[in-house]
């Protein structure tokens, strides 16, 4: 089978090319077959490759397909590297990706750009697989930028509107800011290791001592982390993700919840042996993650758009993942990526199902009582909600608890921030859930027309719900009698034969129990509070908002960060560009440097032109005088 594994990323690329070039002519059914078929084929191959990798003694399957862009001392092969880390991601991408493709068939059915949509979606799967499987950082960067492109195209999918193009542009540009970090990080790593092949870098990193203070690798990893904040929507580059909800809902589920936004975490896990060498970076990662988790969660408390709530929730959950990574819990962070992929994809698809049913109404305040109309969506959403608020026993509980535990070991303040963020999460998720499904309908017209979604949409919901529940098997924490098997599973990828211990001090099981009890208690308390605040409609919350007008306005307007960026960053840059153009280019260089000499020559020419009267007699006179002078000189 080995010789077919190159098809894992290439199949979706072919599907994309087909759908893009011929899809419109071929018709929707052909597009469906091709679009889903290539991802399913890719999934089957991925499963096969996964087990092939598992059978290898060192769990490392590296496939090379020749040189791509080498010159001088640089060598960048086309290569795929499948190991436990990338293998798991590969399965998540193709697996959840396939489900979302299925879901899209129902969701996008009436859309005119059906073929275009599947073209982009397949292309996204291709780039995401390149990101995950690329054997060198450059190849990963191909995927890294490529998913950014697909994200841009899919956010701007409804391009004839006003807001979607703006949101797409914003997403691409903020990602590009991060990509600069990745580019600089790669340059530094290349100068340090002499190669950009991941396995070579990791092997070398395994032999290095951790950096004391701010060294070369700290700089490189910090730069890579800048890239991660862009892709994974962390402070300060998180602004694009909420706007990205302008795209179709399956896109939000696949790209902006389950896969692409976690690639920042993936990048750090991929280079975990290097990051472990740089304690300063690890601190930065942990603190940025924690602050983002809290920051985004507070904004999520008051948003009215169902997808916006989920978007801020995603930002917040990504913050949790970074918090885990920063606390040296690569397995914990990645486990949260894994569980989050299931339950957040489920939440988004559930939300999509609701939006679909409500005829593209996204305002929570106009929903309510949908439980009766949409039982399948209701029950699956309940599973996901329980998971994300960390209800004991769910996969979300397992992964979040492990992160909070490690955060406490790193610094208690991180734990406190994390718990507050978790409480906010519980509150806004119950708010969302209650406003959507419980209580009385607030918009009767929409409610009357609401209906359960077709099977192609509810089936993926059901599968994702099963996955959400089952994911816990992979990482039930050791403190509660589990074996957190994902840690041992990922160890070959995250430690890479490193000589020194990569972990902080270990706490005790009692500590873990205590921390979990406190955080769970607070979390469930917030959830109950959220439920009772909204179960009878909006009155309670409106009264509360009136009591804290300043805070409410601040949160509702997302701390006015967008406005600040426009006013204090974008406008000055545009102003500066105009100054450079109109003052420097046109007046100084062109005016003084180029046209002024020209003008001087012209003035001199105009002066001498005074002697050119155009009258023959004047010329004759001057000729005669000249001849006379010459005669005098020669005959004297």
């Amino acid at each position, binding site marked *: 089978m080995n010789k077919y594994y190159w098809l894992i990323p290439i199949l979706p690329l072919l599907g994309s090319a087909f759908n893009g070039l011929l899809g419109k002519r071929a018709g929707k059914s052909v597009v469906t077959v091709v679009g889903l078929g290539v991802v399913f084929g890719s999934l089957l191959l991925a499963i096969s490759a996964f087990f092939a990798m598992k059978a290898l003694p060192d769990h490392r399957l590296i496939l090379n397909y020749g*040189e*791509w*862009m*080498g*010159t*001088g*001392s*640089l060598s960048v092969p086309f290569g795929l590297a499948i190991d436990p880390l990338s293998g798991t991601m590969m399965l998540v991408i193709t697996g959840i990706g396939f489900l979302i493709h299925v879901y899209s068939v129902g969701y996008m059915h009436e859309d005119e750009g059906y073929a275009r949509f599947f073209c982009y979606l397949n292309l996204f799967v291709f780039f995401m697989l390149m990101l995950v499987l690329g054997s060198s950082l*450059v190849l990963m*960067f*191909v995927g890294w*930028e*490529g998913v950014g*492109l697909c994200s*841009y195209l899919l956010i*701007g999918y409804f391009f*004839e*509107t*006003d807001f979607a*193009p703006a949101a*797409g*542009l914003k997403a*691409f*540009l903020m990602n*590009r*800011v991060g*990509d*600069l970090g990745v*580019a*600089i990080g*790669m*340059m*530094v790593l*290349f*100068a*340090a*290791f*002499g*190669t950009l092949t991941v396995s070579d870098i990791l*092997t*070398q990193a395994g*032999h*290095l*001592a951790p*950096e004391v203070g701010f*060294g070369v690798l700290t700089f490189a990893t910090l730069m890579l982390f800048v890239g991660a904040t862009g892709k994974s929507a962390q402070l300060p580059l998180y602004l694009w993700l909420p706007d990205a909800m302008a795209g179709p809902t399956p896109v939000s589920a696949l790209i902006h919840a389950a896969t692409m936004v976690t690639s920042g975490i993936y990048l750090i896990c991929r280079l975990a042996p290097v990051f472990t060498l740089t304690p300063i970076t690890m601190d930065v990662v942990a603190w940025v993650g924690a602050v983002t988790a809290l920051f985004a969660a507070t904004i999520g408390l008051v948003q009215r758009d169902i997808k916006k709530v989920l978007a801020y929730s995603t930002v917040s959950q990504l913050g949790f993942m970074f918090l885990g990574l920063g606390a040296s819990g690569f397995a914990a962070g990645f486990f949260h990526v894994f569980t989050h992929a299931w339950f957040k994809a489920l939440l988004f698809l559930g939300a999509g199902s609701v939006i679909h049913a409500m005829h593209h109404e996204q305002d929570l305040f106009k929903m309510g009582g949908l439980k009766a109309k949409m039982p399948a969506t209701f029950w699956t959403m309940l599973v996901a909600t329980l998971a994300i608020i960390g209800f004991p026993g769910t996969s979300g509980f397992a992964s979040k608890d492990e992160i909070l535990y490690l955060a406490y070991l790193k610094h208690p303040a991180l734990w406190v921030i994390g718990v507050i963020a978790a409480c906010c999460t519980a509150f806004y998720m119950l708010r969302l859930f209650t406003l959507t499904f419980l209580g009385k309908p607030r918009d009767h017209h929409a409610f009357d027309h609401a209906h359960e979604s077709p099977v192609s949409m509810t089936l993926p919901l059901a599968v994702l719900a099963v996955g959400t529940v089952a994911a816990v098997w992979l990482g039930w924490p050791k403190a509660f009698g589990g074996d957190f098997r994902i840690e041992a599973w990922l160890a070959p990828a995250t430690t890479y034969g490193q*000589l*020194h211990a990569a972990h902080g001090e270990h706490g005790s099981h009692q500590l873990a129990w205590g921390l979990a009890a406190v955080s769970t208690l607070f979390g469930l308390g917030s959830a109950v509070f959220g439920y009772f605040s909204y179960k009878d409609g909006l009155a309670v919350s409106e009264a509360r908002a009136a009591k804290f007008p300043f805070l409410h306005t601040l949160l509702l307007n997302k701390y006015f960060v967008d406005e600040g960026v426009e006013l204090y960053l974008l406008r000055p*840059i*545009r102003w*500066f*560009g105009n100054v*450079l*153009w109109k003052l420097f*280019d046109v007046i100084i*260089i*062109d005016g003084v*440097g*180029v046209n002024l000499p*020209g003008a001087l020559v012209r003035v001199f020419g105009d002066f001498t032109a005074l002697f050119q009267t155009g009258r023959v007699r004047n010329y004759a006179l001057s000729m005669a005088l000249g001849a006379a002078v010459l005669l005098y000189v020669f005959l004297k």
Partner: protein
Amino acid sequence: MTWLNSHLLTFLVFAPALLGFLILALPQRLARLARMLGFMGALAFFALSLAWLLGRGGGAGINLAERTPWFTLVGLPVDYSLAVDGLNLWLVILTTFLVPLTMLGTWNSLKDRIGTFAALFLMLETGMLGALMAQDLFFFYLFWEAMLIPMYFMIGVWGGDERRYAANKFFLYTLSGSLLWLVALLYLANKAGGFNPAVMGQAASTLPFGVQCWLFLAFAVAFAIKVPLFPLHTWLPDAHVQAPTAGSVILAGVLLKLGGYGFIRFAIPMFPDAAMHYAKPLALLSVIAIVYGALVAMVQRDIKKLVAYSSVSHMGFVMLGLASFTVIGTQGALLQMLNHGISTGALFLLVGMLYDRAHTRMIADFGGVAVKMPVFTTFFLIVTLSSIGLPLTNGFVGEFWILNGTFLSGFAWGRLYACLATSGVLLGAVYMLWMFKRVFWGPENKDEDSGTHHLHSDLNAREIAVMLPLVVLILWMGIHPRTFVAASEAPVTALLQDAKAPAIRTFMLKPAVPPVPAADAVQAPAAHEGHAEPAAHEVHR
């Protein structure tokens, strides 16, 4: 045929001009025939260049050359000397490729004197090919100046409203640079007793260092104007905006390349010490050009002017790569020249197609073009992505090599400048995609006077036939760049070795306590510690 066999290059260089004169002799009423003849001829030259340059030489090791004594200029022998090697192979092919493509792409753009235009175009091809192939500096100079004349008329006769100003500016700007250079050329030729670059380089190395610097500067200014390097770039926006589409394409596609090519072919190998002495200012100007061009492009209202300023930014990358004096950087610069020719050429063609329909190029006049012209939008998007350096397109490979080469550069400033230059990649995305959003996306601009309102047809078969090869090349160069740089690897390496370029600078990392065997250690022979050490390479004086 035997004559042709040993004079392939002569034929390639002069056949276009001959055909041009032939076309010129045709009467006015046969203008359409003239245009067709010109196009078929250019296509044939492209096919011949492919067959001869790639077919005969057999890939990487190709070397075609002709050299005979020509005449004596005040006692200095001038050689008739043409050659194609790794450095100019792809630039030559790019030229022969772009000429027919541009002719086809602007088939109906011009209405009057189309026969004359085709003839001038072919003469321009001769000028460009001659300049690319000439291996004798006087010969090179002749072609270098000869190129100006057809381009001057193309802008001045067929240009926009400000064409006379733009044409004069273009001509005088370039000429003033090359006259200085001519003085330096004659001075050095007198010292060397001829115009052979190798001999002149030898002679230059015996001159005092100060004189070498002046000579290098004279060369550099002439080439930098052509590139154009900040702050000598202001002729470019005017020339590009006023020139007809075909002129813009060739200007961006080939003429600008000759500046960078002049550096790598003549200025750097002839005065390596002076070149390295001025590497820092050159690199600084390049970085400024990258950022400056991008910032100014960002606030443009005319799409064509935006693309013109983006050229300043992109060519800044080329100069940065050359100034890095590393194999990766120089190879990147060579590739970036090809990239820029393809991508920016394609952008100008696309803008021309839009202008032909809407008769405006102002961004504000558009909006929602994607609804009306989906195929056009797709092509524009792909070219835009290539221009902003998305991986798997050509732009990425060139910029990545240049940035890495600069970062590894043996000069102390390399790392900082590389980091600064990355911002050009971001700003490139800003101005291109912002423009893309305003022109193509958003609600359709229904205004009666708007450009969008006047768009009635998507691309026709001819226009698609023009764009397809460009898109294929964009992807090909992005996926398999080795095709285009394999030939130049050896000459570039040799050139840098001859120039005694400083060794690349890498980082030394501290191994963990149990020391590892040397074989596994950091594989960097000339490693240095940390960021800030006075490099051992700043010895060139």
